[in-house]
C-alpha cells in the first residue's frame, strides 16, 4: 500500500513537472485528486485494509495529497509568473514618446509680480485694499497736498472726465480713503490700475499699475520706512540686494526719498542693464506729510506714517527681463506662456 501511494505520488509530481499549461495541471489534479481520482480510489479501497491499519493509511494518503496539491499550486504560480513576464515583454513602450499634457493656462507676469509683492507685505501684517480707478480729483490730488493749479498736477498728465473726476494717476488716493475711515493703526498696500496721458511705446503706457503702501501708527519713523523697504527689496530681489535712499520730493510725503536697489544682474558692479551705475531705481517713498494726515483728520502730533509707491510693470519688466512694455498688453500667447 505504502509503495503504491509512493508510486502514485511520484507519477503525479512527474506529470506536474512536465505540464506546460494550466489545463494539463488541471488534468493532473482531476486524475489524482478528483472525486474519481487515484488517491481518492485508494481511500475508497480502505475497506479492504485491516481496521487497525486504517488510520495510518489515511494519514499516508493525506500526506500524499498535500504534497501533490502543493506541487500543483507551486507549478501554477510559476506558470502565471512566466505568462505575466511574457505579456509585459510585449507591452514595452517607448518612454521618449511625447507626453500628453493637460492644457494649463498661464498667469500674467504683472499678476505674478503683484502676488509676490502681496505675499511679502501680507506676511508683515499688511492688508490688501482697493480703491476706485475713476476717482475724484479731491482724493487723487487735493487730499494728497496737491492743490488746484499746483505744477505737480500738470506734471502727472492727467486724464479728466470732468473738472472734478479724473482717471486716477496714482494709487495714492487709496491712502486718503483709508485714512479717512479713521481706523488706526493702518498697515495696507493698495495695488491697482492707474492712468497717465502717455503715448504707447516700449517704456510707456497710458494705463499701468502701481502698488501703494501705507503705515500709520504712533511713533512711525523714517528709520522704519528704510527697514521695511529693505526687507521688501531683499525678499523680492534676493537676500544680497542692497538699497540706497536718495532725497526726493513728493507733495504728499516729507521727507521723501527715491529708492534704488543694487543691480541684481551684475550685483552692483555696473552693467548694461543698470546703465553702468550698479543701481536700479524702483520706487518713491517718504513720511506721510503732516498736512495729509490733518486733511484726513489724523493728528500729526500723535500719529505719523510712511508711504511708498511701486510701479508694478517696472518690477515685472526688471524681474523677468522684458524689454518692451507693449508686450504686457498685447496678450500674445507665446509671450504669456513663458510665465
Amino acid at each position, binding site marked *: 500500500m505504502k509503495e503504491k501511494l509512493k508510486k502514485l505520488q511520484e507519477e503525479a509530481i512527474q506529470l506536474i513537472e512536465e505540464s506546460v499549461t494550466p489545463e494539463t495541471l488541471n488534468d493532473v489534479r482531476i486524475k489524482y485528486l478528483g472525486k474519481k481520482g487515484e488517491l481518492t480510489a485508494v481511500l475508497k479501497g480502505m475497506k479492504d485494509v485491516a481496521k487497525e491499519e486504517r488510520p495510518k493509511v489515511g494519514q499516508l494518503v493525506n500526506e500524499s495529497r498535500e504534497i501533490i496539491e502543493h506541487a500543483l499550486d507551486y507549478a501554477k504560480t510559476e506558470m502565471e509568473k512566466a505568462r505575466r513576464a511574457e505579456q509585459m515583454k510585449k507591452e514595452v513602450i517607448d518612454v521618449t514618446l511625447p507626453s500628453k499634457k493637460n*492644457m*494649463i*493656462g*498661464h*498667469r*500674467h507676469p*504683472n*499678476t505674478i509680480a503683484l502676488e509676490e509683492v502681496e505675499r511679502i507685505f*501680507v*506676511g508683515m*501684517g*499688511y*492688508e*490688501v485694499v482697493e480703491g476706485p480707478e*475713476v476717482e*475724484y480729483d479731491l482724493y487723487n490730488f487735493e487730499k494728497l497736498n496737491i492743490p488746484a*493749479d499746483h*505744477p505737480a498736477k500738470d*506734471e502727472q498728465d492727467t*486724464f*479728466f*472726465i*470732468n473738472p*472734478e*473726476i479724473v*482717471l486716477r494717476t496714482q494709487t495714492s488716493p487709496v491712502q486718503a480713503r483709508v485714512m479717512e475711515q479713521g481706523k488706526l*493703526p493702518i*498697515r495696507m498696500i493698495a495695488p491697482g*490700475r492707474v*492712468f497717465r496721458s502717455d503715448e504707447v511705446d516700449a517704456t510707456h503706457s*497710458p*494705463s499701468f499699475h502701481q502698488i501703494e503702501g501705507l503705515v500709520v*501708527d504712533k*511713533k*512711525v*519713523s*523714517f*528709520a*522704519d520706512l*528704510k*527697514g*521695511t523697504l529693505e*526687507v521688501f527689496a531683499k525678499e523680492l530681489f534676493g537676500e544680497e540686494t542692497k538699497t540706497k*535712499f*536718495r*532725497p*526726493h*520730493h513728493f507733495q504728499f510725503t*516729507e*521727507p521723501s526719498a527715491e529708492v534704488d536697489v543694487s543691480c541684481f544682474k551684475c550685483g552692483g558692479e555696473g552693467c548694461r542693464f543698470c546703465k553702468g551705475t550698479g543701481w536700479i531705481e524702483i520706487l518713491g517713498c517718504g*513720511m506721510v506729510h503732516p498736512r495729509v494726515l490733518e486733511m484726513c483728520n489724523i493728528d500729526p502730533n500723535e500719529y*505719523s506714517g510712511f508711504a511708498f509707491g511701486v510701479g508694478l510693470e517696472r518690477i515685472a519688466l526688471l524681474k523677468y527681463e522684458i524689454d518692451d512694455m507693449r508686450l504686457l*498688453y*498685447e*496678450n*500674445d*500667447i*507665446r509671450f*504669456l*506662456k513663458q510665465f
Partner: protein
Amino acid sequence: MNTSLSWIKAYVPDLEVTPRKYTDAMTLSGTKVEGYEEHDKDLEKIVVAQIEKIEKHPDADKLVVCQVNVGDEIIQIVTGAPNVKEGDKIPVVLVGGRVAGGHEPGAKVAGGIKIKKGKLRGVESFGMMCSIEELGSTKEMFPDAPEDGVYILPEDAPVGESAIQYLGLDDVVFEFEVTSNRVDCYSIIGLARESAATFNKEFHLPEIKETGNGEDVNESIKIQVENKELCPRFCARVAKDIKIGPSPKWLRERLVSVGIRPINNLVDITNYIMEEYGQPMHAYDLSTIEGGKIIVKTAKNGEKFVTLDGQERELDETMLMICDAEKPIGIAGIMGGENTMITEEVKTVLFEAACFNGTNIRKSSKKIGLRTDASGKFEKGLDPASAVDAVNRACQLVEELGAGVALSGIVDVYSGESKQITVPFDGKKINEMLGTDIAEEDMIDILDKIDLVYNPDTKEIMVPSFRQDIERLADLAEEVARFYGYDKIPTTLPKGESTIGKISFKLRVEEVAKDVAEACGFSQGMCYSFESPKVFDKLLIPEDSTLRNGIKISNPLGEDYSIMRTTPLNGMLTSLATNYNRRNKDVRLYELGNIYIPRDLDKNELPDERMQFTLGMYGVGDFFSMKGVAETFMEKVGLKERETYSPDSNIPYLHPGRQANILYQNQVVGYLGEVHPEVADSYGIGEKTYVMVIDMPFIEEKASFEKKYEGIPRFPAITRDISMVMKKEIMVGEVEKIIESNGGKYLESYKLFDLYEGEQVEKGYKSVAYSIVFRGKEKTLEDKEIAKAMEKILQSLEALGISLRK
C-alpha cells in the same frame, strides 16, 4: 537745469572734486545729477602757440609751412588754413594729442582723433592748428571764429599754456534734476549753495555793489501795476549811454559753459542773471516806451500782439501784459514785443525784473503755445526778493562791462510784505520722525549751512524768502536728514500694535477665477480700460443700447482711447485677433478687469466699476467647453445651488442660436456663446470663437468658502435609466428641471448619457436618455421608496409632450 562746475566754483571757490564724486554726493544730498559732460574729455596736448614765420609749400599751392612757437620750442606745422598770418596766436595740438573731431561743424568723433607726426606733400608737420570745431565747440559759442579756418586767439593768450584752459573748455557741465519744490535751485546760486553745504565749504554770494550816477530813475519811468495778484512785484532800473558790444571773455565763457550763445553785452547780461539768480529779466529800449510809463494789466479778449520772434499772438483777458502809456510792449513773463526790441542803436535801456503769478504764466504760456526760458522759470513761482537783486546786479554788470551808465534808484512796486517766516525748532521731535539720535547742535549746524538760521531766543528757525517750500517741522527734518545722510539713518521695523495681514474677500474670489481659468487652459491677458466709440459698431451693439453711454475722457490720447469701456468684449476679441494674425493655434485667454457703468455723472457720481471675468477662445473646444469652465468656477466659489442657462440672452455680438445667459437664483450673472460670425469677421478671426463674461460683484455676493464634510455614501445607490423621444425644440434643461423638482429627497444625481437625432427617430424629434441616481444616507433604498418619485418624473415629462421609450 544745466550748470558748469566752473560757474559753481565762482561761489564755492574751495570746491575741488571729480565729476563722479560731485554727482554722487549731490544726488545723495537731494540735488540729483542726471549726468555730466566733460567738455575736454577728447582734448589732449593742445597749447596756445604763436606763428613766427609762414612760407609757401614747395609742392602745394593751398598749403603753407609755418614755424610755430609752442612755448618751449619752435615746431614746424604744415597747414591749409586760409586765415593765418605771422604773429597770430592759435591753438595747436601737439603730436600724440587729441582733438574732438574734424573741422566740419558737428563732426565730433567718439573718443576724439589722435594727432600723429605727418608729411604733407613731402614736408614734415609736427602737429595741427585747430578750428573751433576741432576743439569740440561751435561757431555759435565762439562768434569770433572764422567761417573757415583756424580759430585765432586773442593777443593776451599765454604762449605755451593750455589753450583748452584759456578758452574755458576744460569745464564739466552737470545736468541736474531739480524737484518742483526747489525753485531756488533753478539758479546757479541755489545749486552753489547746495554744493557748498554738501561738501562743507564756504559759500559766497556775489557782491552787488551800489550803482548810480545821481540821476533819479523816477524821472525817467513810472510803473503802475493794475493787477497786483498776477504781479506781486515789478522792479525797474534804467541805464543810459549804452554801448553795445561783445561781452568780455569771462562772461562769454560762463554762458558758453551752460550752452547759452553769447550775443552782445546787454543780452548777455540779462541771460547771465537769469542763470545766476534764476530771475528772468527783460531789457527795453526806453526810447520806444511811450509816455515814460509802464502799466501792468491784463489783455483784452481777442487782442493781437507781435512778439520778439515776429509771430503774431492772440491774447485773452486772463493774460498779463506789460504796456506803455499807449500800447502793449510785452507778454508778461513770456516774451517781449517786437515794438520795443533792443537794437544796435539803443541809447537808454530799461531793465525789468518782476515776480509774476506762476500758475497764470503757466496757463498763459500753454494757451499761447509759447514756452520760453523765462516762462519756464516764472511758472515755478519765484521769490519776490530776487527781482531787486537782479536789476541791481544788471546795473552793476553794465557799469563793470563799460556798457553804459546806471541811473540812481530803483522803481520797486511790491504789493506783498517782506515778512520773516519762522518755524519752531524741536530737535527731539525731528529725531522721532527720523528714528535717529542726532545732537541738536549738529542739526542747527546743518540748517545753518543752507541759510536756515536758528534763533536761540525764540527757539525758531528763520526761513529765508528763497525757501518758500519750508513751512513746518517736517520740512526741517528733511533738510537735516539729507545733509546728515539718508544712508546714516538706521533701519528698523515699525513696532506698534500688530496687525493682521489679509486680502479681501473680493480678491479671494478673483483668486479662484484665476485658478479655474488657468486649470482650464486659459492664460491671463490684460487690456486697456479705454477704447474707441467705434467698438460699439464693431460689436453690432444697437444705437439705443445703454452700453453706448460710456464715460468719455475729456482729454483722451485720441479717439481710439476716448471711452471707458462698458463691455470687456473688445479687449478680448482684439487680443484673440492678435493671436490669430500671428498664427497662434488653440488660443485661450482670460481677463479680470473692470468695466465702468456710468451713474449720475451730472451729480458727479463715480461710475460703477464692475470687475468682469472674461474668457475667450478659438481652436480646440466648443460652447460646452466654455460652459464647463462656468460650472467649475461656480462650484469652486461655493455657490450653493446650480446655475442655469437660458437661450433668451439676445446678445447682438453672439451667434443668435448659440448663446445663453448664465442665471443664478433667477438673476443673470453672465453670458456665454459663440461670437457672431460677422463680428469675428470684423476682428479678423477666421475660426469659431467662444466667449464668456461673468459679473464678479454678483458672484462675490453669493460666494462662500465655508465647507462642511458631508460624509462618504455608505449605502448602495439605485439607478434608473429613462429613454425619451421629444421634439427637437425642447431643451434638455427642461428635462433636468423636471428631474430636479420631482426627484424627491433621495435624488442624488442625474446624467445625460445619450442624445440622438437621425434616421432612427422621427423627423423633428430627438431621442434623449438620462440616468438618474437615488441614494439613501441612512439606509439601503428599496425600489418602492423611489417608485413615487420616478412616477412623478415620468408624469411631468409626459405632460410636456415627451414620450417615453419602453
